[in-house]
């Protein structure tokens, strides 16, 4: 499941809210791994947790 979502998010097609804590509580370790891959800075090409700037 995690690997699949991770791949989909990388390809930009998985809705990011699939990664919310409630959906994946049993796979806590997995979440950590997914989240590490989703870290972003200020580049256009990286995955963002939100579709828009949150502030």
């Amino acid at each position, binding site marked *: 499941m995690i690997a699949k979502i991770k791949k989909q998010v990388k390809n*930009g097609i998985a809705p990011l809210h699939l990664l919310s804590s409630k959906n994946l509580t049993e796979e806590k370790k997995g979440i950590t791994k997914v*989240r590490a891959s989703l870290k972003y800075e*200020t580049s*256009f090409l990286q995955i963002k947790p*939100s579709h*828009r700037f949150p502030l």
Partner: protein
Amino acid sequence: MSRLFLRNRLCMPVKGYNRSIVYDLIRYDYFFISNEVFELINTTEIIDFECIGDEKNREEIKEFLLKEEIIFEILESDEKFNFPVMNPDYSTPFLITDLIVHVDIDEVSIDKLSSFTLRDISILVDSYDKNVLESCLNRISMLEVDAIFIFLKEENVAYTYENFEALSRVNQLFNIYVFNSTYTSNLNQENELFTVIEIPSSFEYFSKNLDPNKLRINIEMFLEASNYHSYYHKKVYLDMKGNIKNGLYTDEHHGNLKNISVSRFTEIIESKSFQMLGGIKKENTLVCDVCEFRFMCVDSRMPYIANTEKWYHTVECTYNPYISKWKLETDYKPLLEVGVALHPTSGKLTIDYEILEQYNNFLWQ
């Protein structure tokens, strides 16, 4: 027989005053193009390259668009029906997508928020206190929220990884923003579960002004910004006292979360008066309506309307779309200096085309 080309359905051209941008929505990328190329590819039909008279120019444009996969070739014209056009509507199941709170938000308010599914929560921290921040974050992370962001407003602080180590237990924490401050960590970046972003300005300046760091390109952002106000739509700010506001810098408040029930809070955020600002489109806003960045920017300025059909701002954006320059670039000039006058009370816009053209010729020719 001439070759047939279609535009990639997820590459959207957006026209500005001077130039246009192709938003590559699936790859989170963008390309500047001329307004002439915009006219050429702003169609869902087969692209008519023959309208470019100059052959060398035509081949160069074609090559660029093909290389960047903005267009692709089909063999027969009927194949275009295999590529349906994107539905331009936008809807989201979230009642609130972005919630902004202060670090000292009370337990009762957090309890009330637990009835909602939230996309993002931003926590504002006036002055950093490890224990206060940790306890707030722990309580907030129990909400149904996808991502949490922390904004540490205090300036001239040297933060280290040790300051934030305990926070990494919270899965939803994505970014910590620090302002005019530094951050050092001995940890390999890959092992940090959040990213600390050092912003070289004050929180106030950063939150009030548009910054290229706030631009986002993706399908959801594009559709939301085309249909709604990309800052105010589905945003709720709870100020220090618990007042419910549309954004960080709006004066009006719509009640106080501390004194009302969850159902009353829901009624408020679903009410017409609360949702009014969220419904303003860039297309109906002066200056922004000719800006090529309009479907990727998040603009916190308060819009006003007078006797005109369009909304306007009393404070100028850090981007001037009439000359295609950001304030931080050399040769930037504010609107008035390039012949664009926005009357601060009537909201009327007048353009002295001679002055504007002269400056654009100086800049771009």
